[in-house]
């Protein structure tokens, strides 16, 4: 699914933040935009159109160049969570290279999480992707709130699947960069075998991940 243009030495990766409505997908991207250094990434684009139907998604692009000169663009998208925007979700999910599923940790949202995950499975197969093969991480967001699912329950449910699960609070700004790091790490593993990023392009996993997750630790952060 990866877009790879050998002649122009370009590669475009697409990462998608999926999940139920109001689980904090956009907040995750806003937080990434806030925390990561401006150099090497574009501005966060928040796209929303109100018309006879509301469609919107967010896009946070990253750009880096491998030692071989391979230009790598990483586009991070969010999908609209509302059930009715399934067509947009399919359009955004098309040719994805990695997925972060953002779940709402509150207990009362369990059903919504389940429905959205089933929707992800369905739409992945619709666009011809295999949920068992695509790099996937799960984030239980809103851990700062009360009445949330416990770490044991998460471990019990998701442990056997082997899918990496992280806890986060996008609002408070923790767990977000870690989720992203996990996602880009898995994505690297997934594509390295096919495109020999390390051997042919001299791009080690550590470098790749570090380039994409350089945090801006100064106080004078650019506001979104």
């Amino acid at each position, binding site marked *: 699914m990866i*877009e790879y243009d050998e002649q122009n030495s*370009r590669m475009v990766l697409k990462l998608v933040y999926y999940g139920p409505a109001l689980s904090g997908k956009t907040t995750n991207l806003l937080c990434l935009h806030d925390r990561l250094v401006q150099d090497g990434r574009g501005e966060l684009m928040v796209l929303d159109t109100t018309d006879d*139907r509301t469609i919107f998604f967010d896009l946070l692009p990253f*750009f880096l160049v491998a030692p071989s000169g391979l230009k790598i663009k990483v586009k991070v998208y969010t999908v609209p969570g509302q059930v009715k925007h399934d067509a*947009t979700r399919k359009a*955004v999910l098309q040719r994805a290279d990695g997925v972060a599923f953002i779940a709402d940790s509150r207990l009362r949202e369990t059903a919504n999480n389940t429905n959205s995950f089933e929707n992800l499975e369905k739409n992945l197969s619709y*666009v011809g992707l295999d949920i068992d093969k695509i790099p996937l991480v799960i984030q239980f967001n809103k851990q700062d709130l009360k009445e949330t699912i416990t770490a044991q329950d998460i471990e019990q449910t998701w442990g056997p699947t082997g899918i990496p699960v992280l806890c986060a609070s996008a609002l408070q700004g923790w767990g977000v960069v870690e989720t992203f790091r996990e996602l880009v790490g898995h994505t690297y593993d997934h594509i390295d075998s096919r495109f020999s990023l390390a051997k042919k392009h001299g791009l080690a996993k550590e470098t790749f991940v570090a380039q994409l997750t350089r945090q801006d630790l100064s106080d004078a952060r650019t506001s979104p």
Partner: protein
Amino acid sequence: MPPQDSPENIRYIVGTERRLEDVLRAEDVAPLLREALRTGVHRVIVGDDAGKTLWTSGDGVPATMGEATENCPLRLEGEPVGTVKVFGNSEKRDLLKAVASLLSGTLNILAATNLKRMLTTELHTTVVSQSYEDLLIAHRELKASETRYRELAETLEKKVDERTAELKRAYNRLLQSEKMAAVGQLAAGVAHEINNPVGFVTSNLQTLRKYVSRFTEMLAVSREILNGQPPASETFNRKWRELKLDFVTGDVEELLRQSLEGTERVKRIVADLKGFSHIDESELSPLNINRELERTLKIMARAFPGESEIIKDFHPLPNLIGNGSLLCQAFMNIILNAVQAQPQTLQLTIETRYQDGQVRITFSDNGPGIPTEIRNRIFEPFFTTRDVGQGTGMGLAVTYDIVTSMGGTIDVTCPEAGGAVFSIALPLQEH
């Protein structure tokens, strides 16, 4: 309604890669570059990442003239995709730098805005057109199914009508055959009950006839002996006259003959009834209808009045499976019906023909025809137009039963030219 879930159905991808010249238009860039010249710079060049000039202003000024600023980068989604370069007087280096940075900043914002607009439009269009196509597909499917249902409804009505008519026919047949069966059962019972008394009545009558002839003979002998021996003879003769024995001796023989004839007729009716009720026990064999008709006519030869004319219009026929004697009986009853309808100068045409998998036999006579009001009753058992005692009313009923038991049909029409036409159609069964 989503289309079939397969990747082939996806015709849209969001976020295709774009170059700087895809995102920025000359109409957007040219005024900016033109205005930049008014600040006193000599020349502005906007190039792509490969160094190719995309847009420029101040063409009249030689590129060599004046000092150049450093390249100010233009970015798309974080990727350097082009540069802005400003040329001018080296003494105004700060101005050149400021103009370059202003231009690159403006173009970056312009590019980002345009890209966002394009992305939004792209997604909106793809989603809307996808939804539209889904709707079209759903519409087509609905239309197809509507057509299907309409066709179904139309043919259904026709089919219901056909089935209803068929059911009605079957019901009528059933009714008829139940009537026949009831009659058959009744007939069988009646025949059994009547046969015994009729048997001994006949036998007793014959004995009585013998006895009576003895009495008569004895009376004649007595009369002869007494004749000429008065006064006994006078007493004898007076009593003879008083008792009208001349008439009685003559009439008693006639009475007994008529009684025996009556019992004979009762026997015949009973036999008819028995035959009627035992149709199903018939033995089957291959029959040639033409031969069966010839046989029937031969048997009946003596029943035709002198002036009769029988016209045989026989065509070659395939063999049928059936009971020959029953079929002869069926034909005989129809022919007898014609004879009785025209006892003086009968003209009967019998035609046979094989057509549409059926053997068709028609009997056309020159009788008075059958009145419309009784035409549908003539096949009913015990229905007769003749006087009581003249017909059993069983003839045509028996014919009807024989023909229908072979899966055939019989009906009667009366052409305007006169006479009655009985048409029998017998299907060719598979054996």
